[in-house]
């Protein structure tokens, strides 16, 4: 087991390196220099030269890369827009993003697993077919469009604001009211962010469950006289859940991409919105840092998923693969 974890860990190192190289290359494919857009055309050549020096643009590319890497990890990368350290800007937005994304992940697994199991155990029933259709719709619907329709509907029906993290200009709330207000504002964005994942993973869960139900040991379980429920929930479910673990890592890029849109629609003060604002203001240090951190997170997610999978499944742990 230790050997597997160690091996898997070492495999990540070249990937980590590659991620930083690609992030770096992306900044430099921009036509002109990264500071070009910041400057007034009348700026004197001397100041341009000074700025180039400030951002290390006068050095060869590979040296620039290592300098950028050093700054990135030591937190000395500053935003073009307001001169604040990029990592500090990200840290400020982190709590909002975490709340939103963790709620979404909980919603995804909370809905997708029971839905998938139900579909598999009631295969080809009316509800299963309906679930299939709804899942395809969930994958195909543009999130921001659905968000607008829901906002319009909810605001018209309830008359309560849904944008932002809390209701503004309302003071003197007691703790409970405050908490309810926060939860109310969390419902729509986290649901919209989760819809694609719920649809995708419930399908995955269904096919995984169907795969398991065909196995010989399930027939054995029936043969020894267990009821259908016992077979499904005690014997089949556990094994059907295994492949779902590996999905976890790949959920992260989708959530981050989705956050950009959902946080923009709902005026949610998280990292997704910061990313979009930084793209708009051409604040490359912030954009690239968010990009790199996102990719690191995904890599970390897949690593954790693989290790968990090895913990849960001895075939992987002792496998020759």
């Amino acid at each position, binding site marked *: 087991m230790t050997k597997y974890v160690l091996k898997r860990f070492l495999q990540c190192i*070249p*990937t980590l390196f*590659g*991620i930083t190289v*690609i992030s770096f290359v*992306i*900044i430099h*494919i*921009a*036509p002109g220099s990264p500071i070009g857009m910041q400057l007034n055309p009348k700026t004197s050549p001397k100041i341009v030269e000074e700025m180039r020096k400030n951002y290390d643009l006068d050095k060869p590319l590979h040296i620039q890369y290592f300098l950028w890497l050093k700054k990135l990890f030591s937190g000395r990368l500053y935003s073009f827009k307001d001169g604040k350290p990029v990592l500090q800007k990200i840290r400020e937005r982190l709590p909002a993003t975490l709340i939103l994304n963790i709620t979404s992940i909980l919603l995804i697994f909370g809905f997708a697993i029971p839905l998938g199991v139900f579909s598999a155990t009631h295969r*080809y029933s009316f509800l299963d077919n309906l679930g*299939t*259709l709804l899942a*395809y*719709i969930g*994958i*195909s*619907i*543009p*999130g*921001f*469009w659905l968000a*607008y*329709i829901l906002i*319009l509907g909810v605001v018209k029906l309830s008359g309560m604001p849904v944008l932002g993290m809390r209701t503004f200009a309302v003071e003197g709330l007691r703790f409970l009211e405050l908490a309810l207000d926060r939860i109310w504002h969390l419902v729509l964005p986290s649901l919209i962010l989760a819809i694609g994942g719920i649809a995708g993973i419930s399908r995955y869960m269904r096919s995984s469950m169907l795969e398991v139900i*065909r196995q010989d040991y399930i027939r054995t379980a029936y043969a020894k006289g267990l009821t259908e429920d016992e077979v499904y929930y005690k014997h089949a479910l556990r094994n059907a859940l295994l492949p779902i673990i590996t999905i976890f890592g*790949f959920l*992260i*890029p*989708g959530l*981050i*991409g*989705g956050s*950009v*849109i959902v946080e*923009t629609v709902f005026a949610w003060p998280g990292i997704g919105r910061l*990313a*979009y604002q930084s*793209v*708009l203001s*051409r604040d490359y240090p912030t*954009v690239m840092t*968010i*990009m790199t951190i*996102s*990719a*690191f997170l*995904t*890599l970390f997610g*897949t690593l954790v998923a693989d290790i968990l999978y090895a913990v849960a499944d001895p075939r992987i742990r002792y496998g020759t693969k």
Partner: protein
Amino acid sequence: MSVWSYFKRNKLAVAGVVVVFSVFVVAMLSPLIAPYDPGEVKVDAKLLGPSIERPMGTDHLGRDCLSRMLYGARISLSVGFVAVGISICIGILVGSIAGYYGGVVDTVLMRFVDIMMCFPVFFLVLTVIALLGPNIFNVMVVIGITSWMGTSRLVRAEFLSLKEREFVLAACALGLTDRRIIFRHILPNALAPVIVSASLGVAGAILLEAGLSFLGFGVQPPSPSWGNILTEGRTYIFDAWWLTLFPGLAILITVLAFNLVGEGLRDALDPKLRGVAK
């Protein structure tokens, strides 16, 4: 039984084919069937609701929404097809070379795929397009070069098993070049999963363009794409619901159709699933 007879049993997938085909025909014929010029501004006819003469109403500049939707179908479909064309080509090239040669080549290429898969695609596409400047050409190309990784993995997996087969050995024995063996002998046998991922890819690309348009980095107005019609209409959502409803529905239905066709093909082409089909 043939693939088609399996595919036919899946009614949703057949419905998907009908929708895809209709959207295609409508897009091809849009200059003939569009009742108005999509770019014609009529200030006195702005924000008219749906009526018999104008089934989808008009926008804030008095342009006919139906005509714009019809021309938008062309642009949205082109974005989908060109982007997928690019991603499929890269995916096939990377996947077949990695799978055929194996060893170090395979390790290096697949590590590169792993790296690319770590990036959140939507954010990556958004950033690169913001850097290069948003226009339809960049949108197609950037979506294409950031979404080939899935295809390359599928093609590689096919190649790994196909290259051990006897017909490849026979081709080797005949002294054919690697290029000929890869593209003429192995590739045609490895195309089934590529077709599936192409169909799903078109769906993804149309959706991605809509998302980019929403953030202002998709196909730029005045060229109508479904994404930017929807985005322009968003400002008038309280006065003109039709500007939000129709383009959104068009995207949903088209993307849904491509997804259903892709999934239907996947089931029909996968021999393992045939025994258990209904």
